[in-house]
């Protein structure tokens, strides 16, 4: 019996080793994992930094919004709790700066009017074809859920540890790294026409030119206006854009976990009490 057991264990162990070695071999081709950054919204008690979200929003408005849409967001989200923390009056002013196509009017024509808080962010291009036409055939993706649409392979055993560390910031780590990841094209690399070498972009040939340079966007709160801060601020803003309910989710999650843990304790002791009537059981 024990020889069968040890044979089985040896078999299982050798399979595991083989699988691991196999996994490691393919990952060793390139390790482009973005560095893990510190985010205020990471972890069980994470919350957004209002100042960071407002700076990120400024970057979006002045830089990114020229090509990328945010069409699933309404202006009024900017005033909701757990967000950048603008006041309703500020949101109305922001919305009014945008021109929204509305209609048809009674004459049957579409017309433009200033935005209202209930409106969604208008996209910079009328449709995908117009966007491609203005960008050399490439389509700048809408960024409403972009922070959740990007990730990178963690590999074994990291993806197991991630369950315990609650690592859900792959998207923003990737995006911040990408924005800082432009490099000179290495010798011998076949760069397609019009593309730019980026260390973190899969395949390294990124259509988007480096969008941010130091000092480009004016920070009025004293934060250094360098690429490091720009990339993290815009990534944090995009995380909020993708997950506006993050703070409520984690707050309610904490309350639920406490409740369930206490409830489990009560259930456990009740179970023991009930079963104490049965001989042979605790």
């Amino acid at each position, binding site marked *: *019996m024990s020889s*069968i*057991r040890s044979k*089985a264990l040896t*078999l*299982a162990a050798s*399979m*595991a080793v*083989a*699988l691991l070695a*196999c*996994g490691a*071999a*393919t990952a060793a081709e390139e390790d482009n994992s973005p560095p893990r950054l510190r985010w205020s919204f990471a972890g*069980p008690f994470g919350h957004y930094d209002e100042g960071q979200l407002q700076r990120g929003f400024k970057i979006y408005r002045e830089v990114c919004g020229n090509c990328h849409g945010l069409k*699933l*967001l309404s202006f009024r*989200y900017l005033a909701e709790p757990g967000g950048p923390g603008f006041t309703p009056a500020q949101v109305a002013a922001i919305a009014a700066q945008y021109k929204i196509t509305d209609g048809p009017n009674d004459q049957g024509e579409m017309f433009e009017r200033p935005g209202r808080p209930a409106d969604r962010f208008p996209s910079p291009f009328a449709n995908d074809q117009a966007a491609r036409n203005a960008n050399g055939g490439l389509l700048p*993706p809408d960024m*409403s*859920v*972009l922070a*959740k*649409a*990007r*990730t990178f392979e963690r590999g*074994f055993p990291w993806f197991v540890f*991630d*369950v315990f560390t*609650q690592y*859900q910031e*792959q*998207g923003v780590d990737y995006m911040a790294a990408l924005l800082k990841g432009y490099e000179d094209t290495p010798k011998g690399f076949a760069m397609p026409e019009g593309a730019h070498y980026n260390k973190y972009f*899969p395949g390294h040939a990124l259509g988007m030119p480096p969008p941010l340079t130091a000092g480009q966007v004016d920070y009025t709160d004293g934060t250094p206006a360098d690429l490091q801060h720009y990339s993290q601020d815009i990534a944090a803003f995009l995380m909020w854009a*993708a997950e*506006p*309910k993050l703070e*409520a*989710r*984690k707050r*309610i*999650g*904490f309350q*639920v*976990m406490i409740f*369930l*843990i206490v*409830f*489990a304790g009560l*259930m*456990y002791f*009740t*179970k023991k009490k*009930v*079963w104490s*009537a*049965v*001989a*042979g*059981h605790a």
Partner: protein
Amino acid sequence: MSGHSTYQPQSAFMKWLEARLPIWSLVHSSFIAYPTPRNLNYWWTFGGILTVMLAIQIVTGIVLAMHYTPHVDYAFNSVETIMRDVNYGWLLRYVHAAGASMFFLAAYIHMFRGLYYGSYKAPREVLWILGVIILLLMIATGFMGYVLPWGQMSFWAATVITNLFSAIPVVGDSVVSWLWGGYSVGNPTLNRFYSLHYLLPFVILGVVVLHIWALHVVGQNNPTGIDPKSDRETVPFTPYATIKDGFMMVCFFILFAWFVFYLPNYLGHADNYIPANPAVTPTHIVPEWYYLPFYAILRAIPSKLLGVVMLGAAIVILAFVPWLDTSRVRSATYRPLYRQFFWIFVVVCIGLGWLGSKPAEGNYVLYARVLTAWYFIHFLIILPLLGLLERPKPLPASITESVLGKGGAPVASGAAAPERRG
């Protein structure tokens, strides 16, 4: 169902109702007085957990359905509207998505329990087969549900899986365009998947009722695999099994809540937050984790038709386990050789799952073929042979003996629930 209706209506109203629709005595005999083996361990709590998970999925699903639009131009955005504008929509969506994963996790544990303790053996064959039917319905439901958000993975998973039917000789292509409602996955496909995704959980509910009925006719198995010999070896379902099930349910919900509130997108795929684009294929098309072992088996076979056949066989073969396993001993507790192979099988399933997440290239293909072969060898060769060749450990004479040991203290009348008579 097991004929233990000891309920006597007391109030005038209950007497009136019982004479017309004896629903309360049914509930009483099935879930209150129902005799349960006293030695069940925590692996037996997953049936109750699964029932609750089905209820949670149905309730969250129905509310989500009030806000979802099943049209290719609106589906993705309607899900985002749920996440942003519907009160607690984000909670409903994450509970429903993580709930599907938890549902499958509980189902697999529940099935492995059955395989370990021989719960599929006579007279529980029909119970087991009903379970396999539930699994098939769950797989179909989960697949169609994943298509509904109409992300990149939704669309391409639908394309890959529906294309499998083209492997059917002669009529394959016609079957596929009939399923699609067109010449590719499109709006008709999404619409009908929505309809069926709403329907199938209620079919599952019906089969679950049959499953519980079949269980109550023959009674529960228990860790020894030996039938209870007297009333002293059973306890009434309420309060004993109820409280044990309830405790384990709360523990399960802690795990569930961990994913819903802190890791809501961990079990999903980032590509599904990209709206479906028929012109762009994702780098790696992968299903959700609970389908990965079957996906690995499908890709391991070089032939398209045979791959599809083996994919189906991998699930359907479960229905034959009561006859493939020739052992006259039920529980692996007394089958030391089978126990080793059981755990190897568990590792094989996990290995297949991991391989299903990898691209079908290089060494991964070889490993997937080896593990696929083992998967079928386990059912077709090992199970039949083990029953004939294995020397099981001596069985205890009864449950009582296994619990208290031979010649142990006399059994206190634990079966007498604190029920007042009269």
